[in-house]
């Protein structure tokens, strides 16, 4: 009797959260998935997908390439920064780096887009600094406000997040293996790449997957930095809805975007199962 009461109580406690997920997540998700296959007359059709492919196949490819490149750069930078924090021998320099790298973490995407729009422009602060230092002639400066701007903004914003996870994982590693490799004469770069990095791959993957999903869904950055063709899928979705009221094609694009996320989510879940538990 007591057992049933406990279970009932637990169910009651979790009920509001479940209701919220059902109303605000599952229902709109199902709705948008279904309406991706709905024609204008309410019939079942693949029309929205053919239209999305005809109009936006370049943007879909562009989105995938930009996000893949940004994710790869984030991986390299976070391993480098985390590695220096773990292996760096000069305490002051390590402390400076530790203090420095976190700043963009507290800046929302829309503000990051705004910052980069003036910073990376043809006559923006970056080019001005390079010209002042004599690295560039004023006539050589180019605007970086195209795909490069989007990649730079994503890397700028997401690297601190992944580094935070990676550096934490590196700090909790067993120092003994590192010290013994050092005693056997391994250089720092070799220790980082062959001993530390393989051990933190699960954490790195989780960080990268979370950033991948976030970057896939950001609208403000591509909108502010590069809204011409080719641009990212989120811009096209907003355009279909705001300019044409065309939810069908927008939902088809959303469906494709789910597909891209699901492929990655599958890796994430498999990772969790391999570790013998729910993904963190």
């Amino acid at each position: 009797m007591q057992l049933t009461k406990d279970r009932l109580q637990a169910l009651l406690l979790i009920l509001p959260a479940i209701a919220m997920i059902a109303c605000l997540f599952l229902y709109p998700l199902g709705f948008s998935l279904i309406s991706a296959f709905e024609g204008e007359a309410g019939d079942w059709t693949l029309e929205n997908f053919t239209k999305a492919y005809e109009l936006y196949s370049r943007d879909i490819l562009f989105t995938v390439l930009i996000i893949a490149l940004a994710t790869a750069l984030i991986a390299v930078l976070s391993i480098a920064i985390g590695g220096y924090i773990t292996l760096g021998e000069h305490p002051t320099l390590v402390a400076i780096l530790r203090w420095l790298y976190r700043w963009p973490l507290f800046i929302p995407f829309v503000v990051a887009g705004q910052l980069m729009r003036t910073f990376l422009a043809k006559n923006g602060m970056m080019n001005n600094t390079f010209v002042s230092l004599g690295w560039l002639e004023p006539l050589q400066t180019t605007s970086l406000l195209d795909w490069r701007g989007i990649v730079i903004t994503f890397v700028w914003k997401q690297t601190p997040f992944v580094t935070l996870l990676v550096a934490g994982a590196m700090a909790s590693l067993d120092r003994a293996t590192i010290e013994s490799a050092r005693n056997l004469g391994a250089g720092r770069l070799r220790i980082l790449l062959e001993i530390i990095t393989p051990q933190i791959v699960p954490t790195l993957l989780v960080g990268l997957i979370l950033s991948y999903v976030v970057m896939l869904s950001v609208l403000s950055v591509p909108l502010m930095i590069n809204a011409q063709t080719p641009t990212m899928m989120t811009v096209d979705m907003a355009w279909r809805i705001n300019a044409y009221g065309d939810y069908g094609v927008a939902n088809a694009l959303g469906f494709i975007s789910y597909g891209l996320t699901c492929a990655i989510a599958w890796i994430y879940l498999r990772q969790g199962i391999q570790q013998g538990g729910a993904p963190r």
Partner: protein
Amino acid sequence: MSLRLHPLFMSWSQRLLTALLLGVLAFAIFGPIANMLLWAVTEVWYFPHKLPLEYGFSFWERVFRPQGNAMESLLNSILIALLTVLASLAVSIPAGYALGKGRLPWRSLFLLLFCCRRRFQPWRCTPISRGFSTASD
């Protein structure tokens, strides 16, 4: 490189290289932020000048003047953020307790449901939850 030196004996070239890299990183991180701060207090700034020609608060005046609705938007943003935090705490504390401590039937199913949501951003559920998508997206 194979010899491990005491920090004090780290070679000058090595120290210089590290400091240089840190400088580049600092420029990459603080450059954009400094750029925004400068623009916020700029009155006149045009090519080819590297720094603003006149400083002032006219942009601020424009934002906070009574007929601009920036104050209202700002208050709304703060209100929405606070209410969101409160509402999600109210929902997630009992759920977390039930998941962690209670004897919950179908525990793993519920856990999966909660995890699912993190993978799909609200923006993707276009028609209905558009209004609920977070501001930073």
